[in-house]
């Protein structure tokens, strides 16, 4: 089964490479598209949904250029497997939890994901490690062209690409950058940053979208407006502000190093120690502590662990991943024990040294 293979791999957005990857986890662009000859999802009959799914699947897999996409029937998956895809950011929570015919097409590297029958008929997504919005746009623009050569999109000369929700109409594009901002959180400046982002019409969310906690000090910054600005303008709107956010975070880290050195070392080494030695640990606490460790590595306080390894721990300690890796369903308590065991084994294997300054 393809999902079991995936559990042992690391998707594009966790590779921990690309520009500014100490602070920027990933860059992501998604396009919302609908077929012109079907109603939007809420007015679709079961037959409509099934027809959309099969039409998309047939037209796209027949096309040689799109052959490397694997279609997964999401309706057919177990709850755990759907959750697994959510954790990897390949499908949305809404897509996982809805009903009726629906699918996702992904490529081997998990850079592309094409949700069929989400809120819109098609949600195309491209992910890049680090800060690379232009690269993501080139890729998704090309993919969109290839899909469009096979299917007729609902498009209006004045309003652009037509979407189920009027908040997405026009470009149908959401540009998001996932940033890791632990120092701004510790120095309590994060709200100030949010406020300035809001003033320029940008939205800030937690790791797994709206309503999720800002887990592990990860924040997604994305555009709010989709109509009246070109795709390049929207990319610039987000892309121009990220270096400023990065700069704030770097300054906050410098401040912690220079002014609060002892506190910082204490926090980082305690976090590392807890992750190595806990007997049971929740997903939230793991995220919180891994965030401290990740910053510690970037600041040179931990020498025996690399960023890609920590990124991998972030995902593999998520509930569904833990269960996939263990090949069994576990309840919350069992997961907390299993998670501690897993962290113990991974961090001990890597030497298990303490924070270098202690």
């Amino acid at each position, binding site marked *: 089964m393809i999902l079991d293979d995936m559990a042992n791999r690391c998707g594009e957005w966790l590779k921990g490479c690309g520009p500014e990857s100490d602070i920027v986890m990933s860059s992501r662009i998604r396009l919302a598209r609908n077929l012109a000859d079907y109603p939007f999802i809420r007015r679709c009959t079961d037959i409509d949904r099934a027809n959309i799914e099969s039409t998309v699947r047939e037209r796209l897999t027949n096309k040689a250029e799109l052959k490397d996409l694997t279609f997964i029937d999401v309706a057919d998956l177990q709850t755990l497997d759907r959750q697994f895809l959510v954790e990897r950011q390949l499908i949305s929570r809404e897509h996982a939890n809805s009903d009726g015919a629906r699918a996702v097409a992904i490529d081997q590297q998990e850079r592309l994901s094409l949700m069929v029958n989400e809120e819109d008929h098609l949600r195309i997504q491209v992910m890049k490690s680090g800060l690379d919005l232009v690269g993501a746009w080139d890729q998704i623009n090309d993919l969109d062209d290839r899909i469009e050569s096979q299917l007729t999109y609902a498009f209006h000369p004045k309003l652009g690409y037509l979407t189920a929700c009027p908040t997405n109409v026009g470009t149908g594009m959401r540009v998001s950058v996932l940033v890791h901002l632990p120092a701004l959180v510790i120095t309590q400046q994060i709200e100030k940053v949010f406020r300035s982002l809001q003033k320029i019409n940008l939205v800030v969310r937690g790791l797994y979208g*709206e309503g999720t906690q800002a887990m592990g000090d990860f924040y997604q910054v994305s555009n709010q407006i989709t109509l009246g600005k070109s795709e390049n303008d929207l990319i610039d709107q987000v892309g121009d502000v990220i270096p400023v956010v990065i700069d704030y975070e770097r300054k906050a880290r410098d401040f912690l190093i220079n002014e609060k050195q002892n506190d910082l070392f204490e926090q980082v080494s305690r976090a590392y120690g807890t992750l190595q030695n806990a007997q049971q640990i929740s997903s939230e606490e793991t995220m919180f502590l891994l965030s401290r460790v990740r910053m510690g590595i970037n600041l040179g306080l931990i020498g025996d662990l690399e960023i890609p390894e920590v990124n991998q721990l972030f995902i593999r300690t998520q509930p569904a991943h833990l269960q996939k890796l263990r090949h069994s369903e576990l309840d919350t308590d069992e997961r907390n024990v299993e998670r501690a065991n897993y962290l113990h084994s991974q961090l001990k294997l890597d030497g298990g040294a303490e924070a270098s300054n202690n």
Partner: protein
Amino acid sequence: MSAEDCGRSNKNMKCQKCQKQATFHITDLTGDDLLALHLCPDCAKGYLETGDSSEDAPVISDVMSKQLKPLEQTADDLRELDAKECPICGISFYEFRQGGRLGCPHDYVFFGEDLEPLLINVHGDNQHVGKQPKRGITDTESQTELIRLRRQMKEVVEQEDYEKASQIRDQIRQIEGEGSASE
């Protein structure tokens, strides 16, 4: 209205939870309803950190009823608007306001004027300037007709009017045939 204008009009907005000045304007698109949240820094922090999503927040109906006020003078006007139904997909404006999602591409034409204030409020604009389909703007009228015919087909089948159903099926096949011939 430009983005700056939006910024100005936001300045007087009160936080939906505590009545302090709202400086966070969050549009939540992931739930069943579209949520527009206007929060002060304290409540925004709470929202982002605790995952408080839908309970206290207004749904699109609240956002829209506020917006419609300057345009729709009377309750009668609003009732009339709510009763409007798209001839293609059959969705009423009331259903759209409740669910926050439209029923088919033709709704943007049929409810065009009614949606205008919402688009201006959300985007500060009402004119697309980005990418267009590579093969030019296809005439989607026949595709829209397919949506209507398939819906009609379902209705006549339910009424067991099989003669009518077979006529509609032929019409659908004809349009579908034209579509694939041109590709």
